[in-house]
């Protein structure tokens, strides 16, 4: 007979397996190749930026969160937010700004709202939006890829509030080229990643591979990225058919942060709808907003704002799309 006293618990006596922590670390694992690609294209300077945002995010979680031992750091969400924030920044951004961006992402984007599960906006995007508002020039200054593996932009070490060095080579991102010079970047370059842009966004093929892996493993709901990318493709194709000087669908999908945002930002469960129908609405809405901002707005890029606007209406979408109960 049983050696230890029987435990009294209530059903179910089975669990599907994945824990919240596990889901976070699966996404982090899927980001590792993306980080390596950014180092490949932009040099170790890219790694320094990502490390700075991660340090900022993890530091904020530790300072503002539950500080017994590792506390809430154990769930991995601060680490993930730090990585994501870093990957949305340009390669030559001063490191102190990156650190601050990571700190704001978790501090303002998550901790003040009650921590994991309490925030409305994607924390990584809150960090990036803060930097965009505070330092509009460094965050839109792009450098070309392929300057060597050990390349670190001199601007990286600018002191806080000092003048950013501008002795590095700048380049226009594919979206900037399209918007201001009406030049389309080659499709092969867009998907292979050898273009100017934010650290994590340039290599479309790798992002798609990571996304498929995460989707197949059911780490996130496939509906969100599929709806967002699909909406961009369809809406852009329609606009391109109406006026051919507006960029075609393949360019809209492959350029800028669209794929990165769709795979890694629009899939954040906390800030997106819980209902399947709501997920479609969120994805399609975000996709349409991206095209609207890029084509008709003043900025070349709109992924961040598109996702944040949809984050803001997510509670409403949840309200509209509550499931119709069985037999109701």
């Amino acid at each position, binding site marked *: 007979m049983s050696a230890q006293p*029987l435990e009294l618990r209530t*059903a179910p*006596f*089975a669990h599907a397996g994945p*824990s919240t922590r596990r889901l976070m670390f699966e996404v982090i694992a899927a980001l590792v190749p993306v980080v390596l690609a950014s180092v490949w294209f932009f040099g170790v300077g890219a790694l320094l930026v990502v490390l700075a945002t991660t340090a900022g995010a993890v530091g904020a979680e530790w300072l503002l969160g539950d500080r017994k031992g590792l506390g809430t750091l154990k769930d991995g969400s601060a680490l993930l937010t730090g990585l994501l924030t870093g990957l949305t920044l340009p390669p030559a951004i001063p490191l102190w700004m990156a650190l601050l961006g990571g700190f704001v992402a978790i501090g303002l984007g998550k901790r003040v709202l009650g921590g994991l599960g*309490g925030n409305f906006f994607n924390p990584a995007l809150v960090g990036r939006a803060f930097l965009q508002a505070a330092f509009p020039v460094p965050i839109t200054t792009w450098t070309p890829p392929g300057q060597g593996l050990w390349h670190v932009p001199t601007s990286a070490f600018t002191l806080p509030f000092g003048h950013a060095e501008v002795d590095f080579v700048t380049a226009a991102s594919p979206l900037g080229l399209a918007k201001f010079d009406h030049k389309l970047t080659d499709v092969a370059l867009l998907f292979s990643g050898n273009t100017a842009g934010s650290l994590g966004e340039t290599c479309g093929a790798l992002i798609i591979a990571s996304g498929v892996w995460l989707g197949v493993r059911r780490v996130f709901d496939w509906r969100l990225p599929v709806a967002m990318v699909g909406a961009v493709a369809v809406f852009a194709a329609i606009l391109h058919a109406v006026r051919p000087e507006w960029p075609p669908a393949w360019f809209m999908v492959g350029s800028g942060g669209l794929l990165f945002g769709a795979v890694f930002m629009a899939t954040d469960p906390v800030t997106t*709808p819980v209902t399947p129908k709501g997920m479609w609405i969120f994805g399609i809405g975000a996709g349409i907003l991206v095209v609207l901002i890029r084509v008709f707005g003043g900025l070349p890029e709109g992924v961040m704002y598109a996702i944040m606007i949809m984050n803001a209406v997510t509670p409403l979408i949840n309200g509209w799309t509550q499931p119709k109960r*069985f037999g*109701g």
Partner: protein
Amino acid sequence: MFGLGRPRGTFRHGVHPPENKRATDSKPIERMPFVAEYVLPLSQHIGAPARPVVSVGQRVGRGQPIAAPAGFVSTALHAPVTGTVAAIELRTVASGKEAPAIVIKTDPFSSQVVEVDAPARPEPSLSASEVIRAIQHAGIVGMGGAAFPSHVKLQVPAGKKARFAMLNGCECEPYLTCDHRVMVERPDAIVAGLRILLRRTGAERGYIGIERNKPDAIAVLQRACAGEPDLEVVPLAVKYPQGAEKMLIDAVLQIEVPSGKLPIDVEVATLNVGTAAAIADLFSTGQPLIERVVTVTGDAIGRPANVLVPIGTPLRDLLAFCGGVQPHARQVVLGGPMMGTACKSLDISVTKGTSGILALSRAVEPVAEEPCIKCGRCLDACPYFLNPSLLGLLSRNDLVDDLAQAHVLDCCECASCSFVCPSHIPLVQLIRIGKATVRQHQAALAAKALAAKAAT
């Protein structure tokens, strides 16, 4: 808006827990030798407990009534062995509480022949009320786990009719194989039981719904139904909780039983396959419900088996017969892992609703709860299309009106939401509390209204 068409052969949503049926699904049913003592709680079914009709010291024959139904939703109880009534006293039952029970000491010298009279007339020639009465006095209840008195299900309420009769052979709970084995070994009794259900409810077509992980049962029953054009064996996808009555009806007929209504409201009458076999046995041999098949399994049992045991068999004896609970056992569960109850003590006995006994070494480790990350997995799992995360939150905050408005009472407690939640939030547990709170609140309101009416 984006909802796909209603799938055939299954229901929408649900989960896929590991089946864990391999240990027993090909093991023939074995009969357990008689033991010294049997304990029969008077309340083994939903409804009023039975009323004892024997006294302490009285000699009873195997199959003889020892307690009579106390009302319409109540059934009889019979001596599972020939012996003597040793006591009528409080005994521990599965819930951990004490409840009145009849204790029978087995006569070691008896031949243990079932002492009942075969029916005087065949079932088809009996009147409707005779059949209902016979089933009620044979103590037959639903053997899938809920233990609802079966004669109530065969009684079509006035003003309603049945068009479809359906046997539930899903056995969607992991580990359990008792229904599976009964289907494989006793197909003729099951088909005979379905015939009685058809005849007594006036239904035109009969169905037996079986999940595809039991191909032998499907084949055997298809053979048994061959040449009977009004009977159909319907193979169903393997998914939990397909055996929930409303899910089964959806899977077989694509009919949604409205919220708060019963299957008969959509002209369907259902029975579990084991129950159908018990009803067939009653009308062929006169034997009341004195034994049932129990699956004894789990990773901490000596010898997993499907055992035919007398009702009232002490758990300790049954577990010992199956090689004993191993020292590394952490939990003994009555029923399946999704909806079963953990035993507080092994000093209880097999009742009519006991479909399985699981000895588990590492069921679910108690994992610290994390905040809800709003992933929506519970919404995708809920077969009733409720919002379990919201219900859990409302229950935690005791928001009775909001709980009722979010249809908490529609929940059948299948536990799919707790099963999938990555944050390990005890959703179904919270929802159970929420349901109780709402029911209490509604009862209080009704009592208040009644009092106000009486005062005027």
